């Protein structure tokens, strides 16, 4: 071998011409150490039939992509319903019994707050205001905003960990409000310069000044959010008899939140729920009273069915075409078990590849959405790829079932029929 100093060219050559054979060689070695010879023959039979192989992978990719992508959009929507609850993060929510989800505010009386504070076991109880309000922009247009008011002394419920600019203490100064990131563009005085700390706008004919910015996810209504103290928030609303939206409660140290919630419900006639119960109630409402889950369910089912049909059909033709060979193997003494393992390996191999590509594409889709900053909710909880994995495996097993039955039933005598 020619042992000269490696030049850029040879390095390049190494990279492009050697890497592929090297990878191939190590891949082959790896396969050899893991799979028996017959199983590798099964894989060669599979990969050798390019068209069928790609059709199979495409069918399963389609299923995996659809499950993950549609599932993520669905979960994104679900998340929007509960994100406000999660951001507030308090042990107990007290609300009107008719309340179904967090944006479905049925106001309470402020006296309710004092009634709750007097219940035994309550550590603290704080007011929480959540209403739509309107900002008048200098252009003359108006912009709906989600107005949130927290207890003026403690600011309990304010997502302090999400503050990316400003200081909570600044909320003490006159007209001070926090806004979420999205509000910066929506509340800009003109389109070129987004609002920032110190920017001023008018809400219900009252001045508001941005002193802090919070980075929180959007709720279902996805309006810009304006956060301030409870007392100041009231001034940004047309006067009403009932202003209080929720009472946020924490139990005393030795109190079980669920028990306390039950007690509050019983003693006040209001509805008290732990954070978890409230999230469940919200999701229940969402699942039972909107058509959204059904629509998503149908799309996902269709995707799975089409993917399953395509791969089952292709896989079956693949097996039928190989039936003579399988019969020959049988006549030569291969047991049904060996052949079934070969088929399962083939099915699971295309399944895994399809799953990988499908979930990869779905993540890419999510990343692109994130980059584009669209409002489309997209959230992939870890359960989703796991679920998708099992769905794909089941689709593969079902697809190969026909083939497996065929091969088990196959009489070796079939070798002689031409």
């Amino acid at each position, binding site marked *: 071998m020619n042992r000269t100093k490696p030049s850029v060219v040879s390095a390049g050559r190494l990279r492009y011409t050697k890497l592929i054979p090297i990878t191939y060689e190590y891949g082959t070695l790896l396969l050899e150490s893991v799979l028996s*010879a*017959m199983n590798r*023959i099964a894989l*060669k*039979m599979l*990969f*050798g*039939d390019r068209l069928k192989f790609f059709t199979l992978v495409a069918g399963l990719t389609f299923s995996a992509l659809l499950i993950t992508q549609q599932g993520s959009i669905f979960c994104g929507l679900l998340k929007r319903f509960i994100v406000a609850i999660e951001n507030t993060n308090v042990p107990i929510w007290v609300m009107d019994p008719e309340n179904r989800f967090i944006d479905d505010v049925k106001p309470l009386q402020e006296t309710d707050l004092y009634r709750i504070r007097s219940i035994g076991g309550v550590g603290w109880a704080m007011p929480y205001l959540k209403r739509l309000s309107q900002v008048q922009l200098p252009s003359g247009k108006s912009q709906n905003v989600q107005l949130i008011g927290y207890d003026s002394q403690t600011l309990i419920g304010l997502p302090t960990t999400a503050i990316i600019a400003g200081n909570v203490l600044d909320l003490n100064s006159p007209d001070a409000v926090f806004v979420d990131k999205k509000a910066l563009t929506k509340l800009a005085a003109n389109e070129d310069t987004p609002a920032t700390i110190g920017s001023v706008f008018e809400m219900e004919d009252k001045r508001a000044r941005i002193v802090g910015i919070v980075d929180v996810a959007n709720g279902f209504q996805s309006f810009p959010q304006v956060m301030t103290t409870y007392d100041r928030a009231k001034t940004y609303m047309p006067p009403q008899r009932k202003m209080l939206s929720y009472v946020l409660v924490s139990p005393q140290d030795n109190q079980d939140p669920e028990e306390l919630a039950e007690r509050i419900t019983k003693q006040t006639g209001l509805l008290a729920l732990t954070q978890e119960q409230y999230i469940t109630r919200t999701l229940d409402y969402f699942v039972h009273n909107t058509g959204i889950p059904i629509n998503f369910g149908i799309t996902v089912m269709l995707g799975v069915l089409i993917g399953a049909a395509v791969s089952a059909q292709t896989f079956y033709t693949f097996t039928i075409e*190989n039936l*003579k*060979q399988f*019969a*020959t*193997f049988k*006549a*030569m*003494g*291969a*047991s049904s078990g*060996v052949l079934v393992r070969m088929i399962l390996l083939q099915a699971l191999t295309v399944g895994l590849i399809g799953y990988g590509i499908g979930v990869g594409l779905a993540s890419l889709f999510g990343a692109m959405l994130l980059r584009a900053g669209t409002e489309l909710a997209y959230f992939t909880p870890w359960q989703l790829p796991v679920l998708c994995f099992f769905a794909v495996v089941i689709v593969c097993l079902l697809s190969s079932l026909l083939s497996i039955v065929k091969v088990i039933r196959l*009489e*070796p*005598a079939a*070798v*002689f*029929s*031409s």
Partner: protein
Amino acid sequence: MPSSSPLLIENNNSVTTEASRLVGVNKSYGKGNLALQVLFDVSLTVKMGEMTFLVGPSGCGKTTLISIISGILSANSGEISLFGHRLDTATDKQKTALRKANLGFIFQQYHLVPTLTALENVAIPLLIDGISEAEAAQLAQDALHAVDLGSRPTAYPRELSGGQQQRVAIARALSRNPKLIICDEPTAALDGKTGQRVLELLKAVAVKPNSAVIVVTHDNRIYDYADRIISMNDGRIIGDERPHSALRGSFLPPEPPP
């Protein structure tokens, strides 16, 4: 050509063992009113060291018969033995083991796996036997060599002619050194010359003192290679002849085909 001729003398003296023996075999397909009997009281002995042809019109039961001989199909009645082991009373497992240990198959359509190389195709029976890969590769290469394809181990079936593919199939049948090779219409897909060459090769490599070949065929161009021709009609054996007497076969060139 037939180097096995001295053996024929021995065979005529009937001192060799039998590859297969059938006594009073009946076979029907289907049940009850729909049952179709295709073999009637067939008795037959296939000897070692011979190439036995099984001929007869289409549908007369030749394929059925070799399926029964090889233990991949059960008869309704009769005694079937393979190298002295009774098949009619054996379990499927035992039959599979007997097939593995003793039989090789060659088919009209070769039945090679199109996505595997010649060497891989030939190695399959060995791999099924659980022989180590290195050894299987060596034995498969030897078998390819025996059929004059030693230089084409990496060729795929589509890169080979029909005759070459059938030779790969012969190598596959030979690879585990079977005592009986069963061929169903091995030359039907080949032209006359190629068919003759394949048969010649098969006879040279597969017919040995301790092994036998059964060939089912319609192809009268290859009758020359037969040591014995059994004729069938309508599920019965109607003829059993040795086209060249043992002595003639060993000293005289074969007669031209009719």
